[in-house]
C-alpha cells in the first residue's frame, strides 16, 4: 500500500455511492500502484462492478473522489479516459456485425490510427492472445468458441495499449478447464504488457490465481487488502466465508483418517 499523500495509478478517496436509496459504497478508499494486478473479491451485489464503472466514469461518486493518474475522473474528458482503460466483460460484448479484426480495431480507429498501423496492431494482438492472425481476423464472433471470444475480448481491451485494464468477472462464463487455461494466458500476457489491472470476481481461487494484490469488499468498504498469501490466512469474519469453498475443496482431497 502506498503511504498517505502519495497517489497510485488509481485511487479512491472516501467514495460514497448509492443506487436510489440503496447505498453501494460507504466510504470506500483504495490505492492501486501502476503495474499491479488487484483482484477485488466480494459476494454478488457487493458493489464490485460499481467500482470498475467509477474508474472509467460510467458512474461518478456521490461524494469523495476517484483519481486516475492523480486527476479526478470528473475532470477527465470521459471519452478520452475510457479509451485509456480497456474493459473486459464476462459477456465479452463483441460486436456481432463486425469481424474479429474490426472488433479489435475499434479503439485504435476511434483514436484515428492509420490503416497500416491498425492492421499491424491487430496482428500483434491476435498473436499475443494466442489466436494466430491468419484465419481469425476476418471471422465473425459467432464462429468462435467461448474461450476464443474471451481472448478476443482481452485483445480488444488491450488494442490501443491503454495503461489500465478493467476486468469484470472476465472468465466467469467459461468451463473450468478453459478458465484455468485463460488464467495461464492472462499471467503470460500481463508479464509482457504490465498494465495496471483491476479485476473483480466472486471467486477467491481466481483472485489468487491472477492477482498481485487481493482486496475483499464487504458492506461497501474494503475489509481486507494484501498479498494473496496474507489474505488466505486472514481470520476476518468477512473474509472466511469467501475462503470456505477453497478450504472445503482442499479438505475433500485429503485422505480421511
Amino acid at each position, binding site marked *: 500500500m502506498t503511504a498517505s499523500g502519495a497517489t497510485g495509478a488509481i485511487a479512491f478517496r472516501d467514495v460514497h455511492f448509492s443506487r436510489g436509496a440503496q447505498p453501494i459504497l460507504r466510504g470506500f478508499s483504495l490505492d492501486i500502484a501502476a503495474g499491479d494486478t488487484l483482484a477485488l473479491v466480494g459476494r454478488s451485489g457487493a458493489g464490485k462492478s460499481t467500482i470498475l464503472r467509477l474508474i*472509467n466514469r*460510467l458512474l461518478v461518486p456521490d461524494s469523495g473522489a476517484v483519481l486516475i493518474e492523480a486527476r479526478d475522473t470528473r475532470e477527465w474528458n*470521459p*471519452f*478520452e*479516459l*475510457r*479509451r485509456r*482503460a480497456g*474493459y473486459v*466483460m464476462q*459477456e465479452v*460484448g*463483441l*460486436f*456481432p*456485425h463486425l*469481424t474479429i479484426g*474490426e472488433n479489435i480495431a*475499434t*479503439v485504435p480507429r*476511434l483514436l484515428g490510427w492509420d490503416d497500416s498501423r491498425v492492421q499491424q496492431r491487430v496482428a500483434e494482438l491476435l498473436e499475443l492472445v494466442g489466436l494466430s492472425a491468419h484465419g481469425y481476423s476476418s471471422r465473425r464472433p459467432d464462429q468462435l468458441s467461448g474461450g476464443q471470444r474471451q481472448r478476443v475480448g482481452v485483445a*480488444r481491451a488491450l488494442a490501443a495499449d491503454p495503461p489500465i485494464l*478493467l476486468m469484470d468477472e472476465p472468465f466467469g462464463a467459461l468451463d473450468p478447464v478453459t478458465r484455468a487455461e485463460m488464467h495461464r494466458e492472462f499471467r503470460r500476457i500481463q508479464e509482457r504488457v504490465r498494465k495496471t489491472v483491476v479485476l473483480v470476481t466472486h471467486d477467491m481461487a481466481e483472485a489468487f490465481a491472477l492477482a498481485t494484490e487481493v482486496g475483499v469488499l464487504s458492506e461497501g468498504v474494503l475489509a481486507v487488502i494484501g498479498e494473496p498469501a496474507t489474505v488466505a490466512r486472514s481470520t476476518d469474519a468477512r473474509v472466511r466465508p469467501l475462503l470456505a469453498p477453497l478450504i472445503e475443496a482442499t479438505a475433500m482431497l485429503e485422505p480421511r483418517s
Partner: protein
Amino acid sequence: MTVFHFWRTHTGEFMTLLGQHVLLVGVSTLVAIVAGVPIGMLAARKPRAGAPIVWLANVVQTIPSLAMFGFLLPLPLIGGLGARVAIFVLILYALLPIVRTTTAGLRSIDPVLIEAGTAMGMTPGQLMRQVELPLALPSIVAGIRVAAVIGVGTATIAAAVGAGGFGEYIFRGLSMVDSTVILAGAVPSAILALSIDGALTLLERGLRNLRGSRRTTARAAAALGVVVLATVSVVALSSRRSADVIRVGSKNFTEQIILGEILAQTIESGTRLHVERRLNLGGTFICDRAVRAGDIDAYVEYSGTAQTAIFHQPVQTDARQVFEAIKTRYAAGGLTLLDPLGFENTFAMLVRAADAARLNIHTLSEAAPVASSWRAGFGYEFLQREDGYPGLARTYGLHFARPPTAMDLSLIYRALAERQVDFIAGDATSGLIDAYGFTMLEDDRHYFPPYDAAVVARSAVLLAHPELKDALASLSGRITVADMRRLNRAVDADHADPATVAREFLAALSQRSLKISRRDAEDLSRRR
C-alpha cells in the same frame, strides 16, 4: 380485348404511368426514410419525446387515403392536385412502419453491446453510427420494405387527385366496368410491389456484407439526400402552372369522363387556350375541393348533387329553384354555374318498352295501378335510403306483387331484360336503357330532385378569358338525355375511347347547328 393487347396499344401511356408510379413511391419512401429513421432514433432514445410522434403516425395510418387527399387539397404549399399532394400523403403513410421498426430495432440491441461501446470511449454519435444503426439495420430495412410495398398500393389511389400512376387504369377500368383495363393497372402495380420488395431484400443483404468505411456510408447518405432533393424540386417545379392553360376536371365514371373530354375539346377548338385534362378525379368531394382551390378550372356538376352533397341543403324538387339557389351559392365562392347542358342524370324508373306499350303507360302515376302484378328490383342503396324507394312508394302509392328484390346495380338491367323483374330503378343516362329497349317512366309528381348537368367554372378564369366562357356556353342546352345515353353506351357497351366518342359527338353537334342555322337562314329568306 386482352390485357396484353391493351398494353401493346397503350405502350407510351403505360411507360408514363409506370414512371409516375415509381416516382411517387420512390420519392415518398426516400423522404420517409430521411425523416422516419431520426424520429425512430429519437423515440428509442427518449421514449417520452418520441411517443407523441409515434402516436401521431399511428393516427395518420388510420385515415383513409381518399379522405386524406380531401383534407390536404385546399392547403397551401402541399395541397393542390397532382404529384405533390400525393407524395405528401404517401410520406405520411410510409412514416409509421419506418419509425416503428427503427425504434424496435434499436431497442432490441443487447445492452451489453451498448455498454461495451460506451466503455471503449465511443461518443453517443459514434455509438449510434458504429454499433446501434448497423445492428438495427435489418429491422429498419424491413420497415422500409413494408412502407414501399404499402406505398405502391396507396399510390394507385393517387390517380384520384390527378397524380397519375397505375391507379389511372384501375379507376378508368372501374368507371368503364372493364376488367381488362383494371387488370392493366392492377397487375403491374402488384409486380412493382414484388420487385421493390425483392430489390430491398437484396439491398439489405448487400448492406449487411458491406464492410464499408464510414466515408462510403457518409457518401451514400449524401448521394441519397441529393437524389431526394433533386426529385422533389423537379416535382415542385413541374407542377407550376401556366396562365394560358385551362384545367378541365371530371369525376370518375364514364359519363363524367366523356363530358370532361367534350369540355376540353370544345375549349381546344373554340379558343387558343391549352387544355390540361384532369379527368377521373375521385368523386364529387375531390372535384369540388379542386375547383375551389384552383387546381381545376371547370368540370360538370349535377344540380341536385350540388344542392345536397356540396351545400348540404334539403332536397327540393323544383328544377329552376334548385338551379338558381346553387348558382348563387357557387357565385359566393368565386365560381360560375353556366346554363344547364340540357340533360338530367336522375334515377330512372324503368320497365320493358313492350310492357309500357301494351299497358299504355308513360308516367309513374299511370304505372301505380298496374304495379301490383309486378316484381321490382332495386340497388341496395336505393332500397334503403329514405329518399329512395320508401318515399317513392308513399308518393305514388306503389305496391308490388312481393317485396322488391335487392340486387347489384350491374345486374339490374339484365334482370329486367330477362324478365326476372318487371320494374327497376336505374340511371337516366345509362347506355343500357337503349341497348335493352327499356322505357323510362316519367316522375310526374316530381319526387326526385332535379339532377341537371351544368358546367361549374372559376369566375376569375372566365373573366380573364371571355372566349372561354363563350366556348363553354356554346354547349348549354345542346346535350340531350338521348345523346348522353348513346355516348355512355358507346364507351360502356362498345368499349370505345371516351376522347373519340366526344370528338364524334362534337362533330355531329356542329353539323346539327349548321343545319339549324341553314334552316334559320332559309326561314328568314322565306319570310322576306
